[in-house]
């Protein structure tokens, strides 16, 4: 039982990441009809917003410490961050420690800007082009973005830990009435889950309760009609692209303490997020979220030792297997609408 609960927790956590990426992807599908292969790259850029901010915060000047030596035997150069000069050592250290949560504030404008520039500068010209062209251009863009990040940050993962207060784990099982040490869960993963819930809720509320959202939803259903009504749907779609980029970016920012980011993390998530979107049903926001969590949980169950012993290799293929089964039983995914992306 406790093992099951543990894996459900893990699944919810993984699912949060899947759902957040898929949400933006399906938003772009639904509103703009664009197959965006650069969406994974947006997730990656978000993650590197966090890295960049922590680099900025630790921007340092060098002092020479004569008492210690470096690997060549010369006096050790010690880096002192400017932040510590400005705010004092303790306050400076705290600010650096909180770099990841602070990056949210930094990432939102950056990501919206990236999204809008991408849409206006490139994607806009591809609305009426075949999906094949969209794939080629967004894939090219993804590679370029990836290589730019690699040029500045290298290929290796970059450790970017959570603030001290959220590091480590606590006994979740005790809260549920289990014995101690049965369900240990890291704080940051719960933060991530809560954060994802807030973002998902926010996007839904935005689309549900604002006139802007109403128009966008109407546009997703029938673009031409809305245009006939004289509403400038294109401008709204640009903003939606910015929102989708911001959602992916924030998913990336908050993900860095879970796994150190590297330049190809976007590609690692790209295929998976497409599978999630399609399993959920093309253009369906609730579908994407549902499928994200479903696949996250199933993946977690499939990685249990007992399951692998029963079916060797199941952990390798579970996501794809489930995707195939769902698509064969439900032609348009879990919650897909007819006629979206079927040609």
């Amino acid at each position: 039982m406790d093992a099951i609960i543990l894996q459900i927790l893990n699944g919810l956590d993984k699912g949060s990441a899947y759902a957040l990426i898929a949400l933006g992807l399906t938003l772009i599908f639904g509103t703009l009809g664009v197959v965006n292969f650069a969406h994974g790259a947006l997730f990656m850029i978000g993650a590197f917003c966090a890295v960049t901010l922590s680099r900025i915060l630790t921007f340092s000047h060098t002092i020479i410490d004569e008492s210690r030596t470096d690997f060549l035997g010369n006096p050790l150069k010690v880096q002192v961050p400017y932040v510590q000069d400005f705010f004092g050592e303790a306050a400076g250290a705290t600010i650096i420690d909180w770099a990841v949560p602070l990056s949210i504030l930094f990432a939102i404008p950056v990501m919206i800007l990236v999204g809008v520039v991408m849409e206006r500068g490139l994607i806009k010209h591809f609305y009426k082009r075949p999906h094949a062209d969209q794939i080629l251009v967004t894939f090219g863009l993804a590679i370029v973005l990836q290589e730019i990040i690699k040029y500045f940050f290298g290929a290796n993962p970059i450790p970017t830990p959570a603030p001290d207060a959220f590091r480590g784990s606590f006994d979740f099982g005790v809260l549920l009435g289990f014995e101690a040490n049965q369900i240990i869960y890291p704080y940051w993963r719960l933060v991530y889950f809560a954060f994802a819930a807030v973002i998902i809720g926010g996007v839904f509320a935005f689309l549900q309760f604002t006139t802007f959202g109403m128009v966008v939803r109407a546009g997703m259903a029938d673009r031409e009609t809305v245009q006939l009504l004289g509403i400038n749907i294109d401008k709204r779609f640009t903003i939606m692209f910015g929102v989708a980029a911001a959602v992916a970016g924030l998913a990336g920012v908050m993900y860095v303490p879970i796994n150190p980011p590297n330049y190809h993390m976007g590609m690692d998530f790209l295929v998976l997020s497409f599978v999630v979107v399609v399993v959920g049903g093309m253009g369906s926001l609730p579908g994407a979220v549902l499928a994200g969590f479903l696949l996250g949980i199933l993946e977690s169950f499939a990685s249990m030792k007992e399951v692998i012993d029963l079916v060797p290799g199941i952990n390798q293929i579970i996501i794809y297997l489930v995707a195939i089964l769902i698509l064969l039983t439900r032609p348009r995914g879990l919650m897909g609408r007819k006629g979206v992306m079927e040609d």
Partner: protein
Amino acid sequence: MTKSNLTRRGVLRSGAIAGAALGVPTYLRAQESGFTNAPGDSSVTLGFNVPQTGPYADEGADELRAYELAVEHLNGGGDGGMLPTFSSQELDGSGILGRKVEYVTGDTQTKSDAARASARSMIEKDGAIMITGGSSSGVAVAVQALCQEAGVIFMSGLTHSNDTTGKDKRANGFRHFFNSYMSGAALAPVLQNAYGTDRKAYHLTADYNWGYTTEEAIRSSTEAMGWETVAAVKTPLTQTDFSSYIAPVLQSGADVLVLNHYGGNMVNSLTNAVQFGLREATANGKQFEIVVPLYSRLMARGAGENVKGIFGSTNWHWSLQDEGSQAFVKSFGTKYGFPPSQAAHTCYVQTLLYADAVQRAGSFAPCAVAEALEGFEFDGLGNGPTLYRAEDHQCFKDVLVVRGKENPTSEFDLLEIVEVTPADQVTYAPDHPQFAGGALGDCNNGA
């Protein structure tokens, strides 16, 4: 089938006639030397095949730096690096057999196909006489097989799987790097000292060849000293989040977690394990411990503070105090501004070893070089007295057991050497079961 009308590098006689008819000065490039890509009188070309794209790109970049340094030293540039400390004093900075060393580079992409394509282009287009490099066993085995067929020497870079000099060994291939068995043999006594003999281990193993051989090696050496293996779970190579594999560990009754992971897998699984509080946990009344059999300092950086206090093994580390290592660190550090990685070290040493073997053999012919390398004993290259064993072309030398440092002084100072396990302790018989099933075959001169 075995009867061949064309020799491997046959000669197109009609071409000569055509050329002559056109009045173009023509000659036939005959292979009097009798081996592939015999170098000319002035220069010799080596092929450095390293991952330049993909997850191991930084490691590949470090290998490339080491190769450039080695070429510089062989050609008499720089401070000579390890040349003065090398026990064999055949190399004098005048290139190899008086020929200036030149090199070509390629990108393995850490894919066996791409690596072979790149190696073939070096052999076919650039006339490389020796191929070296790589950062994974899959690539090493694939390229080694290719070099065997083509008739050039392969000096592998970073490859840790037993198979490289075990079931997939080849007569033209040589490995300086250590292997899974050696990691197990070196780690076991240290782990016994630190954690006792009554331990229950939980293995997470990358689900591919290297993972299998490493798990097997660590299991057999830890079980031999009394540890029990509670479970061994295979994880997909493409896995990025290991939470669902890590979370059940504490419930399993295990008190040690062994992460048979490398590269990005290792960084993420270790990060996740620490996140889940395994470092602070107690199990069976003991402190819970984590072990990473193969450490790479470059990659360990990605795991940040999570490596602190965690044991593992490594082929070489820049903080070694012997003369050879110091000389190498000095010339590498002076040129590039940071210390070399173990991948850089093994690549540098392999290049020197090859050059020296050619020098001693007096010929570039692969079979002559192989003969010179087989059973060669040397010292001064950083790992103490070393033997290139003739039976399987594996180097036998000291293995380092390291631990993540508690108070690093710099971003490079992540590991501290706990023990230098002498070569004797990690030596095994050539027919050891973990290495069974392959044959070197005959060396191939190609052409």
